[in-house]
């Protein structure tokens, strides 16, 4: 049976009701009880059989022993009859008559043992040797009693036993003494017969005889009258083989005397041995003074004969029946379930179809109601079946007022009276008036006013009869709209054409469709000349590709508008500059249909700006060259100067003794001029480097800086330099350069040996003022400008050493940072150098 995913095993199981379970349970109970009863009966039968077999076995052995006992007892009686005068020959005759070998299989012989006192041994042996010269008692011992086996038949197979004194061995002697003292038959404990070459277990069966043929009553009499024992030796295996045929036996067994194993069939060597027997029991049997323990267990034959499979067959067939029954129920319920499910699916489909139809109807209705145009459905009789919200609004009715009415009420005369006739004509002759076409007609409102409409009618079928659907478009507002659009267009056109800025429109092929007068005239055309021509006609050749790319980008909608400066080609071939602003015009579905552009003439301005930037570039280059020149010149000038200085030094060194005093003075002058020139060149180098390296802004403490400068400059004692403990944000190295020069100047140009230089700082958020104020000679107003020029000194260089570049350098540094340097001084009243650095003081 195959269960689909929808009909799983458990799903079906859960559908079982109590009757199914009742049938299954009672059937199972019946099976189990049938199995139980039959298996009980079978067990009882086997029990009976086993105990019968076990008892039978024991009885068989007991009977065999009894049989031998009887024979031995008869022999004892016979010896009494012969008045105890027995010879070997008589015994041979007697025993031969017994035919023990054939009659009593299992016995090894039958013999006589005499009890001889020690002093009687010699005559006894002597008398025996008369008949049998080989007779002698063995083995030797020191007991005062002797128990020699005197006769034994058949003698040939028992030769080793003749003359054997049984007193040599405890089991034999103990049983013999017991027989003498009790007068009853006795069995020895397990022994090995001397005549058994295989040395297997065996035993002797004793029957005592006395001088009288009766057994004396007291123990004393018994001992006194005791003569000897008639005995039979048994090899256990031979006995059992004789007693029982080991074929088709239902049981196997073992016999133990105490702990000694007498006989054992319970091994895998035995035929039919069952290692897992159905039954196994032990029995203890008292047998002539010995307790023999029998262990009996059922054989394989027993198992095969009596094991009964009937109960199991009943059980299994019952269970199979139950499984079939269960499966039958499953199939039954499975099919039942399938039928129910199918019915449910069909039902669901039906419900869904109905819902679909309803929702489709609702969707259609709401779609009709959201239409802007009116919609009316009528029957072939002209009765209104459906009407949408737009139609109700147009005609000022409510739905209840219209549905069920004749369509006539919605149209003015003459159609109102004739409409039924139109319908009839169409249905009978197929004469179409409005169907399938758009007609300009008039509608009649509830308030009897008439308004223009477009009407379009289509026909359909419903339940076998024709229906007609009319779509009504209100034309009332259309005329007003058209007028407004025309006005707007006129204004726009006037604006465009009157504008001084250039204006154009082009289509997606890049051809002009509109171009205003201003643009056309600027380019040397008339507007009519350009319309229809491609835009590339007004562009220089090298701009065609870029222009095409722009056009394609705009048409494909990647770019909506562009703004750029470009050159245009006039009719006469001259190029002019214009600013282009172009944007796309899209239709309702977002497709680009036009490009509108405005072009402003910037030719003049552009030319000016281009010229200006070219000049700026030139200026920058020449400045750069100048800087480079100053740097290289000063650098290269230094090398020969160094050489001159060195050579002068060497001449002086080498010829100090020979040059005249005047020449020595000249050497000094030479050296001082060389060092002045070196200083000039150094300063020139410094000057040319100003602004080449940019320095980072950091916090600089003015007091600290001044102190450092004063130390390094080696300011003469007598000059005091003061500065406020204020920090400013500034490029440290240039600031230090400026301050060093200014302080140096103040000291250098001071007329006295003592003086005071004060430095002040005045910060604001946008920058700071640095003033260096001295109390020196001052600079006259008219020399202020000159002081700041390069190579200008206000006093002869021989009086005050200096390159004349210090102030110029300071000015260049300060102005490099956008700042300013000014001299504020009145003659004789000291000088103040005011520098301003516009560096914001909130940066760090």
């Amino acid at each position: 049976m195959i269960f689909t995913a929808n009909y799983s095993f458990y799903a079906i199981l859960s559908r079982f009701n109590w009757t199914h379970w009742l049938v299954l349970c009672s059937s199972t109970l019946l099976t189990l009880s049938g199995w139980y009863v039959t298996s009980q009966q079978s067990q009882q039968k086997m029990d009976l059989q086993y105990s019968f077999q076990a008892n039978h076995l024991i009885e068989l052995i007991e009977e065999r022993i009894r049989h031998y006992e009887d024979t031995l007892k008869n022999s004892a009686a016979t010896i009494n009859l012969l008045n105890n005068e027995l010879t070997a020959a008589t015994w041979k005759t007697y025993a031969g008559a017994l035919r023990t070998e054939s009659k009593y299989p299992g016995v090894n012989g039958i013999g006589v043992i005499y009890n001889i006192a020690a002093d009687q041994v010699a005559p006894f042996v002597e008398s025996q040797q008369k008949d049998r010269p080989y007779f002698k008692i063995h083995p030797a011992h020191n007991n005062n009693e002797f128990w020699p086996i005197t006769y034994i038949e058949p003698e040939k197979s028992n030769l080793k036993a003749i003359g054997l004194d049984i007193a040599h061995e405890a089991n034999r002697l103990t049983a013999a003494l017991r027989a003498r003292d009790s007068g009853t038959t006795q069995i020895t404990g397990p022994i090995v017969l001397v005549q058994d070459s295989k040395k297997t277990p065996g035993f002797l069966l004793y029957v005592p005889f006395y001088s009288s043929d009766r057994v004396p009553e007291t123990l004393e009499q018994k001992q006194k009258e005791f003569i000897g024992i008639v005995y039979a030796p048994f090899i256990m295996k031979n006995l059992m083989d004789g007693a029982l045929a080991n074929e088709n036996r239902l049981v196997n067994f073992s016999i133990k005397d105490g702990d000694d194993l007498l006989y054992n069939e319970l091994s895998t060597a035995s035929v039919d041995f069952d290692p897992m027997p159905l039954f196994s029991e032990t029995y203890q049997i008292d047998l002539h003074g010995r307790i023999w323990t029998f262990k009996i267990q059922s054989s394989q034959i027993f198992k095969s004969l009596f094991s009964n499979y009937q109960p199991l067959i009943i059980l299994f067939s019952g269970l199979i029946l139950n499984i079939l029954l269960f499966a039958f129920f499953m199939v039954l319920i499975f099919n039942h379930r399938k039928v129910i499910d199918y019915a449910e699916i069909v039902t669901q489909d039906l419900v869904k179809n109905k819902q679909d139809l309803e929702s489709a109807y609702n969707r259609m209705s709401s779609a009709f109601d959201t239409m802007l145009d009116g919609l009316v459905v009528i029957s072939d009789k002209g009765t209104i079946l459906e009407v949408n919200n737009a139609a109700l609004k147009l005609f000022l009715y409510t739905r209840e007022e219209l549905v069920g009415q004749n369509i006539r009420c919605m149209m003015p005369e003459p159609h109102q009276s004739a409409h039924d006739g139109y319908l009839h004509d169409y249905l009978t002759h197929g004469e179409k008036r409005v169907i399938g076409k758009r007609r300009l007609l008039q509608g009649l409102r509830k308030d009897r006013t008439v308004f223009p409409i477009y009407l379009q009618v289509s026909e359909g079928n419903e339940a076998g009869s024709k229906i007609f659907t009319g779509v009504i478009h209100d034309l009332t507002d259309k005329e007003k709209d058209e007028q407004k659009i025309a006005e707007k267009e006129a204004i726009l056109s006037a604006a465009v054409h009157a504008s001084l800025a250039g204006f154009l429109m082009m289509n997606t092929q890049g051809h002009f469709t509109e171009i205003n007068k201003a643009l056309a005239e600027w380019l040397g055309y008339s507007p009519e000349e350009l319309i229809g021509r491609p835009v590339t006609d007004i562009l220089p050749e090298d701009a065609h590709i870029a222009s095409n790319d722009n056009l394609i980008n705009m048409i494909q909608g990647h770019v909506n508008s562009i703004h750029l400066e470009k050159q245009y080609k006039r009719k006469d071939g001259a190029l002019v500059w214009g600013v282009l602003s172009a944007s796309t015009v899209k239709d309702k579905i977002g497709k680009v249909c036009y490009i509108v552009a405005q072009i402003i003439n910037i030719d003049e301005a552009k030319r000016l700006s281009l010229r200006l930037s070219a000049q700026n570039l030139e200026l920058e280059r020449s400045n750069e060259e100048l800087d480079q020149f100053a740097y290289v010149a000063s650098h290269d000038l230094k090398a020969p100067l160094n050489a001159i200085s060195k050579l002068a030094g060497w001449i002086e060194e080498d010829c100090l003794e020979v040059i005249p005093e005047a020449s020595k003075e000249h050497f000094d002058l030479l050296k001082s001029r060389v060092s002045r020139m070196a200083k000039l060149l150094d300063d020139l180098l410094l000057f040319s480097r100003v602004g080449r390296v940019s320095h980072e802004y950091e916090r600089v403490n003015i007091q600290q800086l001044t102190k450092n400068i004063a130390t390094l400059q080696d300011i003469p004692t007598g000059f005091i330099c003061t500065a406020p403990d204020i920090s400013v944000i500034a490029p440290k190295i240039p600031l230090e350069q400026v301050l060093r020069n200014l302080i140096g100047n103040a000291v250098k140009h001071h007329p006295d040996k003592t003086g005071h230089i004060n430095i002040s700082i005045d910060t604001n958020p946008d920058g700071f003022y640095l003033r260096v104020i001295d109390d020196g000679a001052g600079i006259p107003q008219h020399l202020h400008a000159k002081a700041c020029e390069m190579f200008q000194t206000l006093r002869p260089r021989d009086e005050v050493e200096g390159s004349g570049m210090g102030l110029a350098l300071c000015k260049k540094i300060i102005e490099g940072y956008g700042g300013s340097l000014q001299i504020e001084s009145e003659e004789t009243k000291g000088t103040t150098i005011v520098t301003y650095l516009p560096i914001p003081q909130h940066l760090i």
Partner: protein
Amino acid sequence: MHKQPSEVTLFLIEDDDVDAMSISRAFNKLRIGNPIVRAKDGLEALEMLQQGDIKKPFIILLDLQMPRMNGLEFIEAVRKEPDFEDSIIFVLTTSRSEDEMMQAYHQQIAGYFLKESSGEGILDVVAVLNGYWKIAYLPT
């Protein structure tokens, strides 16, 4: 292993006669007997090296601004010569340009000295060189 100071040659590459002379004078003044061999520019120096005119061990004292092949070009060329790429080179120049100094040090020069305009500066440089070859082990 240890080389006697007198064996080390100073290979002076200097276009300016006066500067070269000032080195010789400094040697005399400090009583240094090591031989001085001079080349007038980088190209000449390179040729002298290739022809084996300069015996090892030697150290090079190099000017930067020279005609034909300047100092930096010379260092670059020497570092490509398998026999002389390990040469010890000191630079002695008037150029204070940091850019040139960095370029020179990138080519593994041993030191960068500035020519003083006057005075005894050159004596210090020569004393340093003398001390250097007295205690340093040079490539042979």
